[in-house]
Each structure stands twice: as C-alpha cells, then as structure tokens.
C-alpha cells in the first residue's frame, strides 16, 4: 500500500469539497474493493475520504414510490431490512447473496454501484428496477448510469448519496456464482411493473450489466416461464474466460432467467 491522507468529513458538502479539490482523492465506502486494490498497489490515491461518518448517507426509508437506500448502507442491512423486504423482496435477497458475511457487513450499495464491476449483483437490480441513482449533484436514471466495464456516469468527485427504487409488482433474482470468486457468472434480475417487464443481466456481458430487451418484451406480453422457454441469448457480446465460454454464459443467463421467473411465478 502506498501512503495516503485519511479524511473523515461529517457532511456531504465537506466530502464533496475535498474530492473536487483533489482529483487524485478517492471516496472510501466499505473498502471491500478499494482496500484490496490499494494493498496490491494497483492504485495510489492521494487521500481517502471516508464517507462512513456522514449520517445522511446511511439508512433505508420507505418513499411514496418505493424504497430509498442510502449510499453507505451495508449489504447486510439491505438484506435484513423489513422495508426493503416489504417493497422489493428480491432486492433484499440479492443483497444477501453478495460475497460472504464479512463482505456484506462492510460493503455498501453506493460503493458497489460506483465501482460497477461487470460481475457485481446490484447493477442488475438497479437496471431492471429502473432505479434512480442520486448524487450530490443530480439524479441519474439507471439506463444512463452504467457505461461499461467499471465505468459509470459519475463525474470526477461526484458522490452517490442514495438510490431510489420504485416499487414493482413482481421481481426476482437468480445468480449463478463464479466457482472461484463467487461473483456472478450470470445474474438475472426480472422486474415487472404494470407497464412493462425489464430483465437485466450481470456477470455475462463483455461491457457489464445490460438489459435483455428481447426477454423483457416477450415477458411484457406473457409473464410466464413457458413464454421464454425457446428464447436464447446471443453469445457474441458475452464474456469468455477460464470459467466459461460466451456460449456457456448465454446458457446460464437463460437458466437464471427461468429460475428468477420461477421464484416469482411459483
């Protein structure tokens, strides 16, 4: 690890000020991604701005549209939240599938989204649920937020403050874990509102999370496992590596879609 300054502001504005003044400074949330990166000397920030003492960033509250989750809310708290479970049970389930207990007790939703790992779980929920990522500067719709591998719409120094999830009629998530890392090899989140069905796939795409529009379209007219039984995902834009070919990931996405649907439709 290289040396860095450590700051722990108690207000969003103070954190934003430090981060804007120094492009080499980095926000620190749960540290589950950032700290291993630092330990391996893969990053050399001048300062870490610890967001953990900013009260507005944590916590979950019910909203008229659904549920709002503060950026610093730990995965374990989302998994255990009655409010989340009441509004979108699949979201609580998803949070409970991330990493292991230690990771869930430290890792945060804001950190996960800002990091935008192509195999992370939350991006699938945010995209399928069409959630809104709220920052210290603006609100960003899910479809605009994810921009590719580890890339988001966030500007230099911009801080995620919370994520607003709209309540949906039905939602389900199924994840096939990478045998080594336990991140998603294919994670499929299905969300049904009165107007439409959105299906998001994480873990499989070459450029990160994506909407499986074909699946969404079919399910919008016929919300059943049978409706998608003949559907296949085109592997040409999927990842291929040691753990599986693009074809295998396409297969997994298909199976996870069925399982996510089965978990909803019974």
């Amino acid at each position, binding site marked *: *690890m*290289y*040396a860095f300054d450590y700051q722990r502001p108690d207000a969003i504005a103070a954190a934003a000020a430090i981060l804007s003044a120094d492009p080499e400074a980095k926000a620190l949330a749960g540290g589950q991604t950032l700290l291993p990166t630092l330990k*391996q*000397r893969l990053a050399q920030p001048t300062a870490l701005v610890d967001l953990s003492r900013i009260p507005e960033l944590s916590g979950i509250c019910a909203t008229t549209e659904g549920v709002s989750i503060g950026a610093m809310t730990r995965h374990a708290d989302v998994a255990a939240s009655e409010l989340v479970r009441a509004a979108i049970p699949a979201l609580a389930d998803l949070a409970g599938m991330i990493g292991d207990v230690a990771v869930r007790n430290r890792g945060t939703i804001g950190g996960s989204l800002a990091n935008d790992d192509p195999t992370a779980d939350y991006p699938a929920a945010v995209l399928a649920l069409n959630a809104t990522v709220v920052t210290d500067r603006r609100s960003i719709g899910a479809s605009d937020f994810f921009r590719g591998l580890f890339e988001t719409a966030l500007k230099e120094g911009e801080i995620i403050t919370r994520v607003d999830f709209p309540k949906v009629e039905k939602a389900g998530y199924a994840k*096939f874990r990478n*045998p*080594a*890392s336990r991140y998603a090899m294919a994670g499929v989140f299905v969300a049904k509102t009165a107007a439409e069905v959105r299906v998001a796939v994480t873990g499989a795409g070459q450029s990160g999370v994506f909407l499986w529009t074909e699946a969404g379209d079919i399910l919008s007219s016929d919300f059943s496992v049978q409706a998608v039984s003949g559907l296949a995902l085109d592997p040409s834009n999927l990842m291929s590596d*040691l*753990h*599986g*070919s693009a074809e*295998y990931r396409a*297969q*997994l996405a298909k*199976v996870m879609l069925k399982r996510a649907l089965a978990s909803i439709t019974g």
Partner: protein
Amino acid sequence: MNASVSSSVTPIGAAVRRKEDHRFITGKGRYTDDMDRPGQAYAYFVRSPYAHARIRHIDATAAKAMPGVVDVLTGADLATDGLGDLICGWMIHSKDGSPMKMGSHPALAKEKVRYVGDHVAVVIAETLNQAKDAALAVEVEYELLPAVADLATATDGEQIHECAPRNTAFEWELGDKAATEAAFARAAKVTSIDIVNNRLAPNAIEPRAAIGEYDSGDEAFTLWTTSQNPHVARLVLSAFVGIAPENKLRVIAPDVGGGFGSKIFIYAEETVCTWAAKKVGRPVKWTGDRSEAFLSDAHGRDHITHAELAMDEAGHIIGFRVHTRANMGAYLSTFASSIPTYLYATLLSGQYAIPAIYCEVDAVYTTTAPVDAYRGAGRPEATFLLERIVEKAARERGEDPAEFRRRNFIKSFPHQTPVIMCYDAGDYVASLDKALEVADYKGFPARRAESERNGKLRGIGLSAYIEACGIAPSAAVGSLGAGVGLWESAEVRVNPTGNVEVLTGSHSHGQGHETTFAQLVSARLGIPIDQVSVVHGDTDKVQFGMGTYGSRSGAVGMSAIVKALDKVEAKAKKIAAHMLEASEGDIEFKDGRFTVAGTDRSLAFAEVALNAYVAHKFPTSEIEPGLKEGAFYDPTNFTFPAGCHICELEVDPETGVVEIKSFVAIDDFGEIINPMIVEGQVHGGIGQGIGQALMEGVTYDEDGQLVTGSYMDYTMPRAGDLPSFTVGMTQTRCPSNPLGIKGCGEAGAIGAPPAVINALTNALGTEDVPMPATPSRVWAIAQARASRLAAE
C-alpha cells in the same frame, strides 16, 4: 468425545481433543511472521514478469539510493560469495543409465529467468513498503525468449536449461518391459486411457515466511522459517548452498500453518534471507503474500499419461503399461524427481494382483513454477490413473466395477508387486464390502431413476486406493537415489518430577502431534497427558530429524518415540529394582507403577523418576543418573494404508453443476492412536481430493503467465461445496512398526479424485471427463450427451 480425559491417562485409541487448538484458536500461536528480531530489515523480491528471458543487465543504482534501502542483492552477489545452487536431493537415472539433467538453480537468477515469479534480485529496506518501492526502481533488461508453458509440446520448445536438450530432465522406466509386452501379446482384451492429472497450487493457509539472523559474535546464523523439516533445510543450506556449517546454523520452524508438502522444500527466499543477514548485518525478514504463494510455491501433480491395461478372457488383469510425461516446472525442486518416479510408478499395482507392469516417465522442464510433492505426491497420480482405467475396463467388459475389482484384488500377504513394493498387510475385500454396504450400492439404480425424474443425471463411482507411507527403510530409498535416510529420531526426557518432554524430528503443521505424541507417552508411562510436552521444529533442541511428509510422522516418528520409551522403561526398571530391593527381572511396569511381581510392593513412575535424578538408591558406577533416552528408528518397510471410497453425485445438465450427494470413505490405517484426529485428516484430504476433481487447476497462458494467480480465479473448495462425509474403518495391523499404524494424512487426497470422476463419467455416460470438472466443462459434456441421445 473425551475432553475430560485430558488430565488423566489417555489410552491409545481415545479421541482426545487437540492440546494445541486452544493456542491456535485464541490467536496465541507463534508463526514466523509473528516474530520480529531487533534491528530487523525487510526483504522484497524482484521477480521475473516473464516466463523465459535472458537477463542482459541489472541496474540497482537508483533502487539503492531510494529512502530506507539497506541493500539490493543479485545473483552476481551470490556468485561472489561462492554460494551453491538450490538442489534436488533425489538422483534419478534415465533408461540409458545417464544421471538426470539438473539445471542450475541459483537462489537469485544469474543468466536467465525461467518462470514468472523467478527470483531476480532482493531489495532489503527499513520497511516492507520501502523495499517494495525500491523493487520497482531496480532496472532489469531482459531479452525475451519463447515461453515453454505447454507440457504436451514442451520437448519441442525453446531449450530452458543448457544441460537438458529437448527440455528433458530424465527418461526413466520401471518394471519388466518384456514380460509386460508378452502379457499384452496374449491379452484377450485391452483397455486404454489418456489422462491429464491437473496441476494444483498447495494453498497452505499460512504463506511461506523467513527471518534470517546473523550473530557476528558467535559467527552463527539463525533461520526462522515455515518448514516441514527444519533439519533437512539446515542440511541443504549447509552442505549444498554452503551458507554455514551445521553447527553454526540453527533452523527454527515454529508454528506452521499447513504445508501439504509445499513447505518441505528449500526455497530461494529463506536461502537469501539467511545469507543476506550476514551481508547487511541485520536480521532480514520476508513474508510471502498470497500472490507470491501462487507464483512461487512448488505446485503439485501435472501429468499427461497414456496407459493400457491387458486382461485375459476371464477378466483378470495380466498387464499394465504406462507412459507418463511429468511436468517439473522450471527447476528441479528439492524432492521433485522422486515424485513422478518412486512415489508414483511403485504404486501402479494398486490393490490388484498384476503380474506385469511397465512404466515409462519422461520428466520435462517447462517455464512454469517448479512442481514437487503435494499431499499424496505421486500416489494420487498413480491412483487416479489406475482407478480410472480399472473402472473403464470394467465398464467396457459390461461388468460391475466393484466385481471387477474384487476379482483382481490381492488377497494374500505379503505380496510382492512387479514395481518394487512388497505389501505387508491388508484386506481389500473387507473395505470394498463395507464401503458398498455403507454407500447402499445396491440401492443406486432406484436413486438414479429418482434423479432422472427430476431432470438430473446421477452417477456412482468407486476408488480402491493404496498408498505407501513412511517412505523407508533408509537403505532401500538410498538404493533408489534418495540423498537422505528416511528414519526418524526421538528423545524422551523425563524430568525429576516425573513429567516428560518428548523431542521429535517430526514436525507438526496441522497434524496434531502435540496431542497424539503426548497421548502415546501418557498411555505408555501412565502419566496424565498434560504432563507431556512435545518439542519439535528447532535444530538446537532436537538433534536431527527428517520432518513430516508422506504420512510418516505416525508410522516412523511415533515408532522412534516407542523405541526411546522402551529404553526409558528399561532403565527405570533397573532403578526401581534397586529401590524395591528386588531383582530387575521381577519388576513389572503397568499403569504407571513399578511392581515387584506377585507382591504389593510398588512405586509410582514419578518416584522412580525423582530417584533417577537424586541417585541415592542405586550404584552410579552401574547405572548412570538421570532418565533421558534417545532413539533413531528406521522402519523395515513402507506402510500400506488402503481403502475404498465411493462417491455418488448428481449433475444438473442445465448448468453443469455437480452436487456430491454422498461420499463414503472406508479406510484401513492399521491401529489408530486418536480417531478424531484421523477423521480430521481424512476429511481434509477428501476436501482437497474433491477440490482437484471438480474445482482446482493451475492455468498458465501460452506466454507462461499465471492465469490462476488469485482466489478470484483459482477455485478452492469451500465447506458449502462438500457433503457431510461418511467415514469408516476396517483394520489390519501394520506388521512393520511397533505400533501397527500405517498413516492417514494423504489417503483422502489420493482416494477421492478417481471416486468423483468415476461417478461423473458414470453420470455423463462418457469416459472423457477432465479434471477439474468445472460446471462449464460438465455442461459442455452434458450438452454433447444430450445431442448424442437425441440423434440416436
């Protein structure tokens, strides 16, 4: 079961809780990295980023000027000081009689680097971070050479060592070629198989570490290191590397967090830390991180084999022919040459009466990390091969694999195999029968039908393994090329107050010696187990020893303790006779008391011990004062644990996920000292065996870069991946050591992989299932199966 037992005498066979666990679990263990020496500096190694390159030039000027840097040392400095290379201590001769081609292996590279992670220079600095910073400033000019990363084509690749044309270290053979050819000539049926035994990373929970220290007053070195055999480390560093004479080099292996073989070897890092300590006049500490462990701990397995099994009309195996290419990696590690030879081919008879066996092994260099012993070491490779081909042969005959095995089992002992080993005892039918019963083998078809109804493919697979433990006797291994003897030493020191210290040359790094060895002494001397301390891992305390590997600590290490205890008892009887004014021949020792036979006159062990030291009641001209005896024990044979494992599993054809439904292990380890510890060893071994079968595999890309360099890509088995094992025993006493024990440390890792793959091939209806059978591979095979079935 018996926690309460710990303050009383503990019989052999009691499941005593491990004495060492309280220390480990409460964080009070003392591992090498827990130690800090006054004035210590930190070492960080500059490692090769390339698989194969010539070093044109190293410029450390800038690095030496960096803050906190004490020194930067390279291979040139080693050469200046006249230090010898790291060695491989087992000489193998090729078929043509020529000695193996041992490529030069300096602790810091000289002309060339030969794998990613090879040691180029060491930076020593006030802090680890400063050492790392400066390491980046060491300028190394490389001339890239083609990598030789693929074992199958390595003999046609760029030559890695000047002394080894076609990258071949040796081409060795074992067995009777003519007799084997003759058997194949008259065979009614031949089954053949092509097998890859996947390469594994050892993954001890504690990474390797070392602290070297030099005392200029005594002109003596001390090395703290994560070693399974500190005395062998001292011997090699002294006699071959030439750091210091043995009397000026103390090696301490304190608590060590697992080894699985990987800490047997003498590596560059501890060599450099010891040597550098004198050079820089400071203690030098190095602690490997996990990435360095993946890169530079010796890996295991990595064979490509073609084999054929000849049978007569009635299904008797009459011949076995094997050709193996074994990956040695970039250098011959400490015992590397013995693994694919004498620890492999000698086991190719397995549990079967095979009249003729012929095995050829080509040991090949590649530009990858060195390959050496890993839990089982050669025996898992032999067992996997044999148990796969036997299973395949039975299936090709349309015969129940259990019955095919039964017909071919060795049924009388001793049994001389055609590949050196003479099995002394065993009952293979007994373990097979028990395993079949416990696994409800008969009920399998019904369970398979049930799985099929749920859209799953179910399979069952057997493995009847044998292993050779103890690696002995010394004269025998010497005649096969071992550079060392493989006996063990022990010393039993009885203190005046009757408690005992046992000094052993074995080394515990997870095996629980502090408990089992103490249990042995407690039972024998009739004193409570907590009055027995086990001392190991320090060359200043224990005179010499061969360390722990090859499941030898029970059979060999404990036997040495028994011998020392025999001497203690004999002397104590003499003293007791004087104290009781009886003749020595009338003294009986039982339950911790010396009794004059047929009387009620007796003395407690502690009374005799005290008297041995005060020496008031016996003539010291006849009997020396004190009660301390040592012994060196050389076994008369290897020991031959054996057993039968049965794995039953289910494949989800949609995803390729394999779920192990049951795993039965019936083992014959001879006499058992502590069944709880034995079970623990079996569980861990099976876990690693299942890991090899389904999850683990070291992968290099064609440039020789390590793809599986972290747990993000190298799949370790986790508790959730494993079923609850059903473990049972059968027992035949081992006739070649006083305790009748055979060893149990590796059995699980040896028996499990073929059981799993036999079950998987059974489920998938094809013999072609590679290890690790990851979900993606299994899915592809299940897909092919489905299309095949659809076409039919």
